[in-house]
C-alpha cells in the first residue's frame, strides 16, 4: 500500500476526485442542484489538464445519458452525475443503458422530485428508477462516495451493467469531511483500463440493438435479470480487494452496526444510516438492544446477506425516505417483506416514511421514532 493523502473535501469534490483517479475518458454533464458541484469540478480538472478526458456540456439530461451510453458503446470509460429531475428526465435512456449492457457509472445526488419543487434530499428520485436495470449503491459518507465510484467502475465493466452511485444532496454532497486519497498506483492496480469485449469498430462492423423478435429479445432480458443478481459476488470481491489494496472498508453488500445481539434493527440507507449509528447508541443507553443494518447495495437487493444477518425474532424498523405509492409506507419496507416472505416468519417489520423533501434527520429524532414504532 503506497502512502495515502488526507484532505478536507466535500462529497461532491470527492466524487470528482474519484473520476480523476479512475482515468475516465468522457464525461457528459448538465447542471442541477445539488449535483452541479461535481460537474463544475470535473470541467475544471479537464480544462486545467489535470484530467485527460472530454467534458461534453450538453443541453439537457436526456442528452447527457444519450451521449454517455454512445461513448461507452464506442469503448470509452464514461462517467456522469445528476439529481432529481435530471435523473427522471434520463429515464428512457437508463433503460437503454442496461438493455444494451453499457457499463456507464453515474452518481445520483439524491434530491426530492417535482412537483412541487424541492432542492433537498429524499430518495424518490433514484428509487423510482429501480426497474430500469441499473445496479445501485447508496453511500453514507464522503469517503464511501470516493471508494464506491472506483468499485462501481470495476463491477460495471466486469458484468457489463451500468451502476448508479447514490448519496444525499447537501448532507453529503456539500459536507466538508476528511478524505483519504490512496496513491494513484494503488488505484490503477485496483481498476485497470476498460477493455470492452465489444465496441463500435469499423474494422469489425456490427450493429447494436436492432429490432429484435421475441425469441431473441426475451433471452436478452432474462440474461440482464440474471447478471444483475450475478453481480453480488463481484460487489463483494471489489469491496474486499479495495480493502486489501487501500485498507479502506465501507461494508460490501451491507454494512452493520451493533447488530449481533440486536432485538430492534434500524434498516435504512444513505446519510441517515450514518446518523442512525448515533441513534442506536442513544437507544442502547436507554437500555434498548438496538442495531443497524444498512444495505450499501440496493440493487441487486442483497436478500441472502440480509436474511443471514438479521437476528432471530428481531423487530426490523425500516426507515424509508421515499414512498411506495399504491402501498402504505415506503419501498425498502416492501422489498424487505417480499424477500422475507416464507423465509423469516420470525421477523416483525415496521415501517415509517421520514425525511421527505429534506426534513432534517437527527439522531435524537430517529431514536424517538424507533422507540415509538416499538409500541405500535
Amino acid at each position, binding site marked *: 500500500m503506497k502512502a495515502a493523502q488526507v484532505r*478536507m473535501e466535500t462529497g461532491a469534490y470527492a466524487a470528482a476526485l474519484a473520476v480523476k483517479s479512475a482515468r475516465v475518458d468522457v464525461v457528459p454533464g448538465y447542471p442541477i442542484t445539488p449535483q452541479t458541484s461535481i460537474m463544475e469540478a470535473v470541467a475544471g480538472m479537464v480544462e486545467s489538464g489535470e484530467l485527460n478526458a472530454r467534458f461534453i456540456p450538453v443541453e439537457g439530461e436526456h442528452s447527457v445519458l444519450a451521449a454517455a451510453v454512445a461513448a461507452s458503446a464506442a469503448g470509452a470509460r464514461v462517467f456522469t452525475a445528476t439529481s432529481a429531475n435530471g435523473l427522471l428526465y434520463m429515464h428512457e435512456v437508463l433503460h437503454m443503458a442496461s438493455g444494451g449492457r453499457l457499463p456507464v457509472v453515474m452518481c445520483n445526488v439524491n434530491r426530492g422530485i417535482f412537483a412541487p419543487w424541492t432542492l433537498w434530499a429524499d430518495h424518490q428520485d433514484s428509487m423510482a428508477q429501480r426497474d430500469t436495470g441499473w445496479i445501485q449503491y447508496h453511500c453514507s459518507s464522503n469517503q464511501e462516495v470516493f471508494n464506491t465510484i472506483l468499485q462501481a467502475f470495476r463491477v460495471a465493466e466486469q458484468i457489463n451493467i451500468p451502476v448508479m452511485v447514490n448519496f444525499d444532496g447537501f448532507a453529503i454532497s456539500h459536507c466538508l*469531511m476528511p478524505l483519504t486519497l490512496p496513491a494513484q498506483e494503488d488505484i490503477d492496480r485496483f481498476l485497470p483500463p476498460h477493455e470492452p469485449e465489444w465496441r463500435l469498430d469499423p474494422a469489425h462492423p456490427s450493429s447494436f440493438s436492432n429490432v429484435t423478435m421475441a425469441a431473441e429479445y426475451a433471452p436478452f432480458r432474462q440474461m440482464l435479470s440474471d447478471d444483475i443478481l450475478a453481480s453480488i459476488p463481484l460487489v463483494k470481491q471489489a469491496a474486499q480487494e479495495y480493502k486489501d489494496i487501500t485498507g479502506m472498508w465501507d461494508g460490501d453488500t451491507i454494512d452493520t452496526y451493533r447488530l449481533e445481539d440486536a432485538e430492534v434493527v434500524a434498516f435504512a440507507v444513505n446519510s441517515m444510516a450514518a*446518523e442512525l449509528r448515533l441513534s442506536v447508541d442513544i437507544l442502547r443507553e436507554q437500555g434498548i438492544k438496538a442495531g443497524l443494518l444498512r444495505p450499501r447495495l440496493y440493487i441487486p437487493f442483497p436478500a441472502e446477506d440480509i436474511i443471514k444477518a438479521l437476528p432471530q425474532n428481531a423487530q426490523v424498523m425500516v426507515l424509508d425516505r421515499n414512498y411506495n405509492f399504491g402501498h402504505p409506507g415506503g419501498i425498502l419496507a416492501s422489498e424487505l417483506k417480499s424477500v422475507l416472505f416464507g423465509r423469516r416468519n420470525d421477523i416483525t417489520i415496521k415501517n415509517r416514511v421520514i425525511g421527505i423533501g429534506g426534513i432534517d434527520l437527527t439522531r435524537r429524532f430517529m431514536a424517538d421514532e424507533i422507540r415509538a414504532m416499538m409500541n405500535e
Partner: protein
Amino acid sequence: MLELRINGFGGQGSVTLAHLLAQAALENGEQGQALPFFGVERRGAPVRAAVRMSPTTIHAHSQCELPNYVVVMSEKLTEAAVNEGISDCGTVIINAPHAAAIAKHTTWQIDADAIAHEAELFSADGPLINIPLFGAVCRVLNIPQNIMEQTILNKWPGNSGKRNLGAAGKAYNTVKQVSV
C-alpha cells in the same frame, strides 16, 4: 463530539468560516466537519452552517439542533440564533462592538467589523468579518494559535494569507468573555 452553529447573513462568508473551522480541527489532529445549510437565499438573507469536531470519526450528517456553541455573525441575529436552539450551558460568540451576556449561557464578544476595517479586509458587502471571527472562535474553542494560523496559510498561501493572519490573530487575542 463538539457541535457548533454559525448564524449569519448571505454574503458575510459563513461557509468559508465553517470550512476554516473544520480544517482547523483536522490541522489540530481531530476530525472536522462543515455542513452549511443551502437554500434559495440571496445575498443579505439569513443563513446557517453546522460545524463538528471530534477525536473519532464523525457519523452525524444532520444540522446541529442543540449545538455546544453558537456563532452570531451579526448582532441583529442574536435572539433568533439562540432561539433556534443551543444546548443548556452552551456558549454564544457574538460579533458586535459590545454585547450583553445571554442568560444561562457563557457569552463571548468580538468586534470583527472593526478588526476587518483596520486590516482593510473588504468584500462587495463590506468588511470581511469571517477571518477575524475564525480567530476568535479558535480562541474560544482553545485551538492553539499556531494551528489557527497554519489553517489560514494552507487556505491562502501568499500575501492575502499574511494580511488575514494579522486580523485573525488580533481577534484571537481580543475576543473576551462577557461577564454577567
